[in-house]
């Protein structure tokens, strides 16, 4: 695409010999810049992704890299687990601390309820209630117990376990782990 005739006039300097004051308008050709910008905007809009896994992406969470899998994420609730915070759909649930016994990231004593993280389970129970309410109104959107886990690549399995257990107890037994695809 080209914006033909695009130009801005600026006053030129003095031309000619012997001090003759001839001022000619110099036309700044904006066409190549507009062409480049249009191509750039089209490319960025085409590659723009608004899926929940991409939106949940943050500086604190560096995703794992995988080679083969190419399954794209669906629209699901997202549990985000960084080295210092646990979130559900972007809302903070509880902080992540370092367990002095084993050095693994862990959750504060106040949030534990047996084997579960109480605030996460409560929040997931509400998400499940909402999903089931939607299912009653629209049977084409059934609640299938899927949840997206968006966690940092260095988080050990010991820290993921209580998160998965809390999700499973709330009815989310299909954990979809987000990763960076190579394809």
């Amino acid at each position: 695409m080209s914006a033909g005739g695009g130009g801005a006039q600026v006053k030129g300097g003095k031309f000619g010999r012997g001090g003759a004051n001839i001022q000619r308008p110099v036309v700044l050709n904006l066409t190549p810049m507009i062409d480049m910008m249009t191509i750039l905007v089209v490319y960025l809009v085409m590659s723009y992704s608004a899926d929940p896994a991409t939106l949940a992406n943050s500086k604190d969470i560096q995703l794992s890299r995988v080679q083969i899998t190419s399954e794209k994420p669906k629209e699901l609730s997202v549990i985000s687990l960084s080295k210092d915070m646990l979130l559900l759909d972007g809302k903070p649930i509880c902080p992540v601390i370092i367990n002095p016994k084993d050095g693994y990231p862990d959750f504060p004593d106040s949030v534990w309820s047996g084997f579960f993280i109480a605030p996460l389970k409560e929040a997931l129970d509400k998400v499940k209630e909402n999903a089931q309410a939607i299912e009653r109104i629209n049977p084409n959107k059934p609640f299938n117990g899927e949840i997206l886990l968006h966690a940092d690549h260095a988080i050990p399995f010991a820290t993921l376990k209580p998160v998965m257990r809390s999700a499973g107890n709330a009815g989310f037994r299909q954990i979809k782990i987000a990763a960076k695809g190579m394809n």
Partner: protein
Amino acid sequence: MSGIKRKKIAEEEEELNLTPFLDVMITLIPFLMLTASFFSVVVLEAKLPTPIPPDKMQEVKMPPPFDLVVMVPKDSIKIYVNNKDPLGPPQYAVAALDRKDSTTFSDEQLKSFHAILVEIKKKFPTEERMALDPHPALPLEKLSEILDQSKTFTSTDAAINENPEFKANMRLFPGIAMKGVYVP
């Protein structure tokens, strides 16, 4: 219309005002560049084991007809197929001792692991279930690599040319259950 008038109109041709267009572009480009992500996000599915209801316990076959367990301790990947002794030696293993402090497995280790799973699939072509038992210290990156290598065949696997069903669905062991997570 006279010839002079026509000439005047041609001279006073309107110029396209590009300022608002440029304003929009200059705002839009930084916004898109800051919010865009230049990698694709994929998902790896891991199911949590479902407890069997007491009334269906009688229907459960013991020992199960097919039992594939992948245990991932700190120093290796151990693969048990229909193993009667859970504490005994695994049928297959990939040593990973040299990479115990790394957050990833090496390409050779992943290729060996994938090749073992392909061999098992050739022996049990209809089976799709696998139990994964990771060590608590195993980082998510390694766990993701194990899940990634277990789910599907790759286009370079020779086994897909031996069985048309493998080529059609490319499924290796997609039914992965996390053995280490017990949900009451």
